[in-house]
Structure formats: C-alpha cells, structure tokens
C-alpha cells in the first residue's frame, strides 16, 4: 500500500480474483447454515442472472468472522466499505425504520391556540421516536451494534408527518457487544474520524417545535407602511420557536448521556396546510468520549488539482502528482 511504484493490483492478483472458481478460497470453513429465509415467499421479484445461476455451485460463506459478507445488503460506497474495514468494523445489513404520525388540522382552526402547536411537535417527536425504535429492532435482529449513515427523511403531508430512516447496521468485525444499538446519521468517514479521535455515537438527537406566527392587525400594518422598524412580535415568536426546537434537541441528547451533538441539521418551513404555522426541526448525532481524552488528528495540507469537491474519489481515480 505504501509503495508508490507498485500498481494498485498486479495482473496476477487480478487473474486470481477472476479465475478462482467460487467456493475454492474458503474451503477451510464448512458452510454455515443460511440465515432464516425471509418470511415472505421468495417472489420472483429479483434480478436477471438467475436464468443461468445453475452454472454456479452454491457459494460458501467465508470465515464467520472478518469479511463474512453472507447475505449482506449494504448501501455503503466502496470507499465507505474500505474505510470501515480499516478500523476493523464491518457492515451487517441495510436496516429500515419508518413511521407516520397524525397532525390534525382542527387544532389550528382557532387562532392562537398554543396547545395545538405543542401537540404537533409531539406528533413529530413520536414519529421520529417510533422510526428510531423500528430501525433499532431491525439492527438488533441483524446482529449489528449500531446504525450509521442514516438517511433521515421527513415528509410533512396535509394531515400526517412521516419519518423514514434507512441506514447500515455495523459492528466490530466478528461480532461485538449487544445491548442498545446506536442510531446515527454520520457518514462512515465521519464515524471513522470520530472513532479515531476517541469518540462514539450514542443516538439521534431530535427536536421539533411549531409556532403560529401572529397575524398583524390592520393598525400595525398601517403604522409600519413607511417606517423602518423591527417587527418585534414576529421576531419574538420565531426566535422563541427556534430556541425551543434547539432546547428539545439538547435535552434529548442530555437524556442519552451525551457530551455533544455534531452535524446538527436544521430545517424550518411552513406547514402545507397552514402557512402561518412554521415547523422547526433539527437533528444531529449525540456523541460522547469513549476513551479517556480526545486524540488529535494531525491533518496534512494538500492543494487539489480537481475542480470537483469530492477529493477522496478523485484522488483514487487520478492519483496524486508529486
């Protein structure tokens, strides 16, 4: 790896890769029993290739520890797979949790009913909590110790809010502790960097709040037509709601015993059914020190010759020019 003159992979190695009959490499280990087949009948929804799959003897899984990819479905990129391997972790499966919660409109019918905004925030929180619980169950069932790279997708419909989490269950190669799996939207790269710096993810911190923006009275509108003046009541309402959303995010992180929240994302948009109601949602990964203290990464400075942002990919593709 460190020898700059050595090609990425010798011809011989490649020859071997492509011409080793399947099943020869891992002959030392007996075939492990297949995991229990999916509960649904195997519908022919799959891909082509099966029309000739009889050319191949059934493959044997490799050693049950490192590198066992038996039936793994992973949405990681190859870079992410390699990075995960470099800290001796492995992907286990793609895991899923989705939840839909109701937001009734009636609560907003009478202007100024503060209760409704609170309960809508609760609906949001309950959708997230349930989606997290489902993805956690899926992760435990797959044998992972945590889920990373979670794609967090919120959709607010007219009467419902939907939270969908899709991520990759991972574990240290060959198993790892059981217990309560963590759920994190960190990418593998971020996970690795944090891991090397001595931190571990705990879970998804989440906060939502809703605010009903006060209507301005005719008198106020009239007075403000020509003046440059802060619309203090609006400022106050929006400011207050943002603070509340962030506060809920923080308290959910504190509830997990976190020392910090990284990569907080933030969205604010009016609800589709009530333009005067703004929903604030924020989420991020709660983390805590796993070692005694923070370990420093000393980065090297580089000047990139590509115009694209994705340095890792491009370096791989083009090589660095000394």
């Amino acid at each position, binding site marked *: 790896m460190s020898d700059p003159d050595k090609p990425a992979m010798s011809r011989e190695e490649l020859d071997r890769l492509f011409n080793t009959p399947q099943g020869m490499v891992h002959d030392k280990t007996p075939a492990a029993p297949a995991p229990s087949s999916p509960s649904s009948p195997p519908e022919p929804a799959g891909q082509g290739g099966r029309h000739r799959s009889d050319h191949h003897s059934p493959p044997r899984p490799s050693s049950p520890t490192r590198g066992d990819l038996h039936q793994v479905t992973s949405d990681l990129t190859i870079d992410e797979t390699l990075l995960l391997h470099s800290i001796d972790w492995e992907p286990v499966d793609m895991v899923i949790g989705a939840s839909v*919660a109701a937001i009734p409109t009636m609560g907003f019918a009478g202007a100024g009913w503060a209760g409704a905004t609170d309960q809508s925030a609760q609906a949001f929180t309950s959708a997230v909590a349930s989606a997290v619980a489902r993805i956690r169950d899926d992760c435990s069932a797959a044998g992972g110790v945590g889920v990373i790279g979670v794609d967090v997708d919120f959709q607010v419909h007219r009467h419902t809010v939907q939270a969908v989490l899709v991520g990759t269950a991972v574990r240290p190669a060959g198993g790892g502790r059981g217990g309560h799996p963590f759920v994190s939207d960190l990418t593998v790269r971020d996970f690795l960097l944090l891991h090397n710096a001595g931190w571990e993810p705990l879970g998804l911190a989440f906060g939502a709040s809703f605010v009903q923006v006060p209507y301005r009275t005719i008198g106020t509108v009239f007075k403000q037509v020509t003046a440059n003046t802060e619309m203090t009541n609006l400022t106050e309402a929006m400011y207050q709601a943002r603070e509340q959303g962030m506060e809920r995010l923080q308290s959910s992180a504190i509830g997990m015993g976190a020392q910090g929240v990284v990569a907080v994302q933030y969205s604010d948009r009016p609800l589709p059914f009530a333009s005067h109601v703004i929903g604030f949602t924020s989420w991020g990964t709660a983390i805590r020190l796993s070692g005694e203290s923070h370990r420093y990464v000393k980065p*090297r400075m580089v000047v990139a010759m590509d115009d694209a942002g994705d340095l890792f990919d491009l370096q791989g593709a083009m090589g660095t020019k000394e």
Partner: protein
Amino acid sequence: MAFTSGAGTGGQAGPPIDLPEAAGRRLAAKSFSSALSVADFAACLHMGMRPVGLVQGFCAMGWNPGYYLPSQTNYGNQWQGGYGTSWSGWGNVLDNYYCPHSIIASAEHPSRGYNIEATGIEATWAEGYNATYRRMLEEAEALGAHGVIGVTDATKPLIGPRVREFHLLGTAVVMDGQPAPDRVWSTYLAGSKLGKLFEAGLAPVSVVGAFAAVTVLPVCVTEIQENGRWDTYGVVSPYGEIGQLSDAQTSARRLVRDHIKSTLDGGALHGADLRVSEDSLVGRTTISAVLRGTKVRRVRDAEPLPQPVPTVRLS
C-alpha cells in the same frame, strides 16, 4: 493496435435474434465505444481491462397495477369482508387491522384494514428487468466480453404512466490473456471504485434489482388519523402514530430488501440504492420501492486498508 477482438467474435456469432438489426452492425464495428468517463477509462486500463463496446438492453412493459385488482364491484364490502376475498394475482396480505370501536361496519366505517403486498405488479417489474438484463448480456456475449462495467439503469415511465421502459447500459470489457468466465459478470461500478472493490477482496457477479409494492386498504382509525379528523368515539389519539401507515412504509422497504436477498445466493449486495415512491393506485395509497446494487462475492480475505492520511485542502 489491439482493440479489435470484439469484431471477430461479434461478427461470427452474430447478435442473438431478439436484438435489433442495428445492434449487429454496431457490435461488429472495429472500434470500441464506452460510456466510461476518462478517469474510469484510465483506471480500467490500469486494471488490465480493455473496453470492447457499449452494450445495452431494453424492454417496454405494459404497466397497469390495477389489472390484478379483485372485482371492484361492491368495493367496500368485498375488501372488508375478509373471508372469501380473492387476493390471487393481486397480492399477499401482510397485516390485518381491526376496528377498535364497537359499531357495525359500513362502507364509511371499514372495520378491517389490510396492508397488501402487490405481488402481481412485482412480477411485471421483474419480468421487464430480467428481459432487459438478459438482452444486455446477450450483446456483451456477442462481443466476447468478460464483464460489463459502469452499468447505468434508466427505468422510467414512457409516453404516459401505462408503459414503463426498462433500460440498462454498460461498457463491455475483456481482460486480455484471461480465459472467458463461465458467464459474463456485470456491475454498476467502474473505474477506481471497481479497483477498490477488488482491493477489498470482492469481485462483482452481476447487477441486481428488485421491486416491492405495498397497498394500504385502511381500517377506520387509519382513515380518521390520515385525514386529520378526531375520533368521535375517543379511542385513538389524534396526535399519535398511525400504526398501519408506519407498518406499510417500513414493510415496503424491508420487503424489497428481502426480495433482493433471495437473489443473492449467499453473495452480498454492494452499493444498494433504494428509491421509494408513493402513488395512488385505484384510489388507494401504494408504496413502491426499488432497490438496486451490485451482487459481489468474496474471493479472498479482506485485509484492512491502512489508515488513510487526513488532509485539509488549501483552496
């Protein structure tokens, strides 16, 4: 000049009969074409792979999910009836939901709800994808290729929603000096990404795709919550989770994962790409999920990569 071997095999064998006539002429040409970017092309040569031609498969399928629907007469009652409802051709019942109120069922107050896997349309999808995949592979074989890299999948509605086109496009490659594999392998990856896959000790087997669809026939409480109404019987909280919809959203995604697993034969799926869409099918919400990726197999133990050098860009 070595880029000629595609012509020999392609010319002699001729294209398989279900490929269009122009395909034969194109595949017999002396020069290759490739959809690879230059970076991928370079990495591909570096790995000892020689592009021999662009290969594609295509199939247009009639697409009418409602075709499999059980008789639509007496709509409400039949679905609510439970016993005797014929789901054959339409799908499997994944979950049942019951009315929590002690009142008599009616068309306005469905006492049973179902989440149904629409197996009929799933089979249609599989047929289209398989035909497309097979044709792409036939083109690759006509070129004497060993593998197809950088496959792209452009499956979309064609001229309205009733027709769906399946289209796969990739670059066929030959590994000079190597015997042809038993069957042509294929992958969505190309270039350095493919190189890194080999470095990870994995080899591509084939591109795979799967499709799952779940239709929601809502029970009364689902309808109430979904439409933002209050439960006049006071049984369900208007702010709570809508169990039936949560289950449907979750199971559509898990089903497509299970479907793809059933095609893996013990291999692994790399680089899974999940796309979910929701539409109204005969007036009922249907959640469709498509999952794609490259089926890979392990050919040697993975040696962990040395830790990469952390860098900060000076620009």
